[in-house]
Structure formats: C-alpha cells, structure tokens
C-alpha cells in the first residue's frame, strides 16, 4: 500500500442555479480503506459522488486519482480510471442472467459468445477471490435483493474497479444481509480495494468504516477516524447541534380498538399474493409498528387500507363500521370520510404534487371538504388561511404557501403532508416511512407529532423499513415477511430477534401470533 491516496478531491464546487450543492470540498481517500461519507439528505453527498462518477462536472476544483489530475467527463471515463459505482437503485436487467448483466456494456465484440466465456472464467475467479458467490446463470428477477446487490458489485469488479462507491447500499437489505455486505466490503479492503460508503445511517458508519467524513449543507465539515469518534459526535456534526436520538414518550394507554383488520389478502397486478391473510388490531391511543424489509407487503397493506388498492378478500372494522374489503369500491376519498388519515410512504410519488404550490398540496385529498369550497369553486382564501396556520404550527420553512412544494426540503415536504393529514384529526392514521429522506432535526419533530397524536387517543399504524424508527415509536411491533405477519413483539423488542423475523427465520414464539395480534 503506497501513501498516494486513491482519490483526492481539491476545492470541488458545484452549483445548481442558486443552490450551492458542493462548497470547496476537500477529500482524501486512502488506498485500501473503507471511507464513509455521512450527511443528511440534501447535504451534497450524492452530488459529490456523481461528480466523481462523471454524471456531473464540477464547476471548480480538481480530482486526483492515484495522484494524477484527471477529468471525468462521463461514467465511461470513471470506469476507465477504475472507479465503480453500486447505485442505490440497481441498474440490472431483470430478465437477463447474472452473467449477461455483468457483461452488459463490456461485451468487447459484436458476437457475444467469446465475451461471455471469458466473463464466466473471470467471474469464477472474482467469486473465489472475494467470496462473492452468485450463480452466473440465475436470472436477476429470481434473486433476492441482497444477491442482486452482489451482482452490482461483481459488475464493478469485472470492469476492474479499484475504487468502489456504494450509494446507500443497505436501504433494501435486512440487518443480516447488511452485515453480510459489510463482510464483503472487509474482504474487498483486504484485497487492496478502496471503498467509499455513502449513507445517512450512523450505525453503519460505526460498523463498517475506517474513516468517516461528514457533510453538512454542501460542505465537508469534518473527517474522523471511525475508531476515535462516536455516534453522538457524528450526529451533532451532521446537524450542527446536539440531537436526541431516542424518542421521549410515556408508556401507551391503549383503549378500545379503532381499527380491526381480518384475513386481508391482496393480489397485485401480476397475480401474485402480496398480502397473505393478515389480521391485526389497532387500538385508540397506541402506535402499532409494522417492521419488515421493503417489499414484503407492507406497502400494499397500507395502500389497501387507505382505499388506493383493491383487496382480494378481508374485512376492515373502523370506528365500529365493518367493510368487506373484497367487494368494497371505496376509494381514498371514502376512506378519508371514514376518518382515516394516510401519510403515504413515498411523498414524491404519492403524497405531494411537486409542481403545485404548498397551499394546493395542503388540501390534496380534502379539496372536496365544504370548509375549502363554495359550490363548485375552491375557496382559495380559506385554503390559504389554513395553509398559513399549518405552516406556523409545523414550522414549515420557508413559510410561503405560494412556493412550489418541489422547492421545499425533504423534511419540510414531509411536514406538509403530516400537517395535512394530522390536522384533519382522523381517528386512525396510517403512516408510511414518515422520516425517509428527512433530516435529523425534522425527524425529532415528526416523531414528536406522531406520539402526541397517540397521546390524544388516536390509533396509529406505522410502517417503516427503519428498524430504529419502529423500535423508537411503536408500542407493539408486528413483523411482516413475504406478505404475512410472522411475529409480534412489545415495544422493548430485541433488535436481533426482530432482524431474524424480518429475514423470515421461523418464529419460535408462535403463541404470540396465534394469540391474534393482541
């Protein structure tokens, strides 16, 4: 190992119009190390990595690879310099085999067979060297996400990457899969590769990296040896002030059930059962958390209860009224009328219309409410008045109801959605991923609001893929795997145990499930 850094960035600047996404960034990544870059959403991590991978050009500043100044004009140039990237959303062709995906874009000749055979040998060597075992002939669509990610890593190695950038790699993984990934990274490091790990999860930084750099608002605020820092210090560096990592809440005082779901089965458009015979109860005054790795039916469960998706069968009792979900034609507006609020998992795709003004989004779904309309017309004065009140109460910044929601930060966008749904005072609130892509400061605020709502005697169903969030907020935890509820635990649930349940390991405490979900 030489002392020349694998990557060195000097005074990198990047502006998007008035937004200064990267300010005078200096970064030195040592060869053969795992270097973490942590920061809140919008801190500029992804921009920086995109500059390194050639998606964007820096306005100013130098990039040095192996001590030599380089220009990275596109991703091809980055690959040529030995930089590989594993994207947050995999860039794989689902109905191609592992081998075909690895070769894709590096076929070497017009005819496939030569390249494929060479790739097969090379893949075998890589698998042995790095313990990255994947069946080269398996189709991507048949592989679990953890293995798909491995294919992405193999792809980069096949293109002889010396530096591997991983962008939020654990978002889709179970805790055991994440641990396995970290082991792979360790092997890569020992083989002399350099790894850049981008994440907003403090725990992963502590578990996997040698060095960590913290970004805040486009600036590189600190670089630390991981061994000589702590989660608290990093959190403070990320936010710029000290933060409470735990949620302060009193024990729940559940009352009568407000929502009872029985034998709910949902089939998706491909005819696959995504929710399988699920039953549970949510009581007034409690938060029920649904833990699970993304894609195990939680999203579909939430959307079905919200009236967005149709169920195959099942019943829903809400506020004493029984609805046969298998035959009901109730849509989202009807469910809202039954006092069911819904903070959707994906605010960009579903919760907000980003090209609309804040005030227009503040009534999305409630626009037919007589309070906001006069006959067929919208009562813009009443709508804006309400928007201003919500902005003040939820400290939404900038406090401008005329601004397009696209121009708010993630945390403030989420507050807009939350304000809209909570302020209608529903009896039941469905909450999906309330703090995904939200900065730490806003997370505190959002968690507090949800707990306040519980304390006001409402029933809350929380779906999150962040196990920490589930454990911090929930009074009861249900674990979903493969469309089924595979276990139930109390608020003091052990993380390791939940992790195993999320990974589909049989629950040896079956009684808890059979006892109904309560």
């Amino acid at each position, binding site marked *: 190992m030489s002392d020349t850094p694998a990557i060195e960035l000097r005074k990198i600047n990047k502006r998007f*119009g*008035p*937004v200064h996404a990267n300010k005078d960034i200096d970064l030195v990544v040592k060869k053969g190390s795992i270097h973490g870059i942590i920061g809140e959403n919008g801190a500029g991590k992804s921009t920086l990595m995109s500059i390194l991978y050639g998606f964007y050009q820096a306005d100013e500043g130098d990039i040095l690879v192996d001590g030599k100044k380089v220009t990275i004009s596109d991703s091809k140039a980055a690959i040529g310099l030995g930089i590989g990237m594993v994207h947050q959303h995999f860039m794989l062709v689902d109905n191609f085999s592992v081998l075909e995906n690895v070769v894709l874009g590096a076929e070497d000749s017009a005819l496939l067979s030569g390249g494929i055979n060479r790739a097969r040998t090379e893949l075998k060597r890589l698998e042995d060297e790095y313990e990255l075992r994947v069946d080269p002939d398996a189709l991507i669509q048949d592989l679990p996400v953890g293995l798909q990610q491995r294919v992405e890593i193999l792809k980069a190695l096949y293109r002889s990457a010396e530096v591997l950038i991983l962008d939020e790699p654990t978002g889709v993984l179970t805790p055991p899969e994440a641990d396995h990934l970290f082991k792979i990274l360790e092997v890569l490091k020992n083989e002399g590769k350099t790894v850049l790990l981008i994440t907003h999860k403090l725990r992963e930084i502590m578990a996997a990296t040698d060095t960590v750099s913290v970004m805040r608002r486009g600036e590189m605020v600190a670089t630390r040896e991981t061994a000589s820092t702590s989660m608290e210090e990093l959190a403070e560096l990320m936010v710029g002030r000290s933060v409470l990592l735990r949620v302060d809440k009193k024990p729940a005082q559940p009352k009568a059930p407000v929502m009872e779901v029985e034998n709910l089965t949902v089939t998706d458009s491909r005819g696959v059962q995504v929710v399988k015979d699920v039953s549970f109860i949510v009581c007034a005054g409690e938060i029920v958390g649904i833990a699970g790795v993304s894609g195990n039916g939680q999203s579909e469960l939430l959307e079905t209860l919200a009236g967005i998706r149709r169920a195959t069968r099942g019943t829903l009792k809400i506020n004493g009224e029984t609805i046969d979900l298998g035959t009901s034609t109730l849509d989202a507006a009807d469910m809202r009328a039954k006092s069911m609020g819904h903070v*959707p998992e994906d605010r960009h795709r579903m*919760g907000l*219309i980003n*090209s609309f003004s804040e005030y227009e989004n503040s009534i999305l*779904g409630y626009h037919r409410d007589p309070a906001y*309309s006069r006959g*067929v017309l919208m009562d813009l004065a009443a709508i804006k008045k309400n928007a201003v009140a919500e902005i003040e109460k939820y400290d939404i910044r900038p406090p401008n109801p005329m601004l397009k929601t696209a121009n708010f930060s993630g945390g403030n966008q989420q507050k807009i959605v939350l304000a809209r749904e909570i302020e209608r005072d529903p009896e039941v609130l469905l909450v999906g991923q309330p703090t995904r892509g939200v900065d730490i400061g806003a997370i505190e605020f959002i968690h507090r609001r949800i707990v306040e709502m519980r304390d006001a005697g409402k029933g809350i169903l929380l779906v999150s893929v962040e196990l920490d969030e589930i454990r911090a907020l929930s009074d009861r935890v249900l674990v979903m795997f493969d469309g089924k509820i595979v276990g139930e635990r109390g608020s003091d649930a052990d993380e390791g145990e939940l992790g195993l349940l999320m990974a589909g390991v049989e629950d040896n405490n079956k009684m808890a499930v059979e006892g109904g979900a309560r």
Partner: protein
Amino acid sequence: MSAGQLPRWVDYGLIPFLNLAAAFLVSGLVVVLIGENPLDAVQLLVWGSVGYGEGIGFTLFYATNFIFTGLAVAVAFHAGLFNIGGEGQAYIGGLGVAFACLALDQIVPWYITLPFAIIGSSLMGAAWAFIPAWLQATRGSHVVITTIMFNFIASSLMVYLLNNALKKPGSMQPETRTFEAGGRLPFLNDIFPSFGFGYAPVNLSLFVALAACVLVWVLIWRTKLGFEIRSFGANATAAVYAGISPVRTIVITMLISGGLAGMMAINEIMGSQHRLLIDFVTGYGFVGIAVALMGRAHPVGIVLASILFGMLYQGGAELSFEMPNITRDMIIVIQGLVILFAGALEHMFRPAIVKLFTPSRALAAKEA
C-alpha cells in the same frame, strides 16, 4: 430542484420571442433561397395581417378558430392527456351547429339560435371525444392513437352524411342549404362599421371564444374539478391517493376538451359559411396543438398564440398573392417552422437562458 426557475417575463416573454425570432430567421433564409427579399416578405406579411381593417378582420376570424381548438388541447394537457382529435371533434361539432341552425333559422332570430348552436356543437364534439376517452380510461388505449383514428372516421362520416342525408335536394354539392338570418351570426363589420373589417368574416363568435377563455381559466384554476384535472395531470398516483377517480377525470376532461373543439364550428358554420359543408375544419384542429403549446396551456397565452397564427394565415395568404414566387406551400412551410420552433423545439434555448440568468443571481446571493 430550483435550477430551472426563471423570472416570469423570461419564461412567458423572452423564450417565446426567441423561438419566434429563430423561426422567422430560418423562414427568411428560405425566402432568400427562392430569390425574394425577406424583409419585403415580412413587411407584406405584417401589413397583410394587421395593416388594414379587412386584414385584421381575417386575422381575428382565424384566431377565433384557433382559440377554440387551442383551448381544447390545453384543457386536455392539464390532465396529462394529448387530445389530437380536435380536427374530428370540430368537424362533428359542425353537425350540432347545423342541426340548431336548420331547425331554428326560419323561426327565431340568431340570438335564440346561438345558445342552441353552442350546446349542439359542444355536445357533438364531446360525444366524438367520449369513445376515445372511455377507451383510455377503462382500457388504457392511448388517446393519441384513438383520437387521430377518430379524425378519419369523422371525415368519412361527414362525407357520408352530407352526401346522403343532409344534402340540399336537387343539388350536386355535398352541403346543406344556406341558413336564413336566424342561423347567421352578425359580422363584426355590421356591428362596428368604423373598424372597417370590410368583407372579413370575423363575427360574434369571437366573443364566444373569449368567454370560453375566461370559463376555462375559472375551470382550471378556480374549481374543484380543475384542481382534480390538474392533480391528475401532474401526478396521477397522487391523484388516486387523494381519492380522485382516474376514469371520471379522464372522461370529463376529454368531454370538455371535445366540446371546446366542437365549438370551433360555430365560427365557421354559423359565423361565416352559413351552411354545413365538406372539410370546413382544414387543419385548425391540428394547429390548435401548436397554439396550446405556444400559449403554455394558459388562456391568455392561447389568445396571443391564436392571434399570431391568425396573422400567419392571413398575412401568408396576402404574401403568396403579392409574391407569386412564394406559393401557398411556402406559407405552410413557414407556419411549420413556427410550430417547430415554438412547439417541438420549445426548450432549445432554455438551457442557455437558464445559464445566462442564474450565475448572476447566485453570485448576487453570495455577495449579499
């Protein structure tokens, strides 16, 4: 991302102006190529369209057609639908106007007939848009495909009806009888003789078109239905989340769009031709797409774009008359260039303009 944010006057003023300037520049080159003086040509075109009363009258007459078809396309745009069936919907809308006029022209004055003509034309236009709308909403058949196919069906249907059912007895012309006074809208020249519109067919339906602009503005930006239409157009998933029915929104929007397109027939049939005849739409439905694009799907922009295209139609006719080298086809080429630059290449200058405007602002913000 606020990178694309520009001052409003740039977005709605400078960029369309640049697009137009580019279109005229290229057109000028074409004029030079065929050996005429482009400056003279521009002068003729402008003079022919707005230089004298009758020219203005023709320009406004064409503009009336474009306002209706432009609004039709714009309303559908707001729901994310691309209604390119304005041509057929306007054609069939002619039936509604003709029915009202043929039934009433001999018994009541025009101002009684007009409401029926409006209702008839919009109902017929809407009906013609209904089947594509329904197929899109429930079957996912793309409206671009179905509406354009319906243009052809409309064309054949009208030929059949005019030849076999509506033709004046004893005539060889595939057209209805000429309407009496009760089926004719007053020409503006008769109402405002001092403007000197002369023989230009511009008529009262211009005001119907302007009223439609106001109503569309209210619909889109002030009503709950408009909110639902815009929500669905901007983010269909969020619309479903908000309890907005896609089927209902698609069908209603297309009905409104088709109705507006159908109303174009009032101007042509009741305002100018005073009889229903073959091929009276002659491309107004398609130009409406360019009008809506150029007018940014906003009624004010549509009025301005309609006047521009009205000028091109009228001034172009004048130009080809005065400069025999510039044939009717050349005029269509010029119109095509305007559509190309204002519509298809709308964003060509945008990145450069964004660059031009943002660094100074960012620097100003930094220094502040």
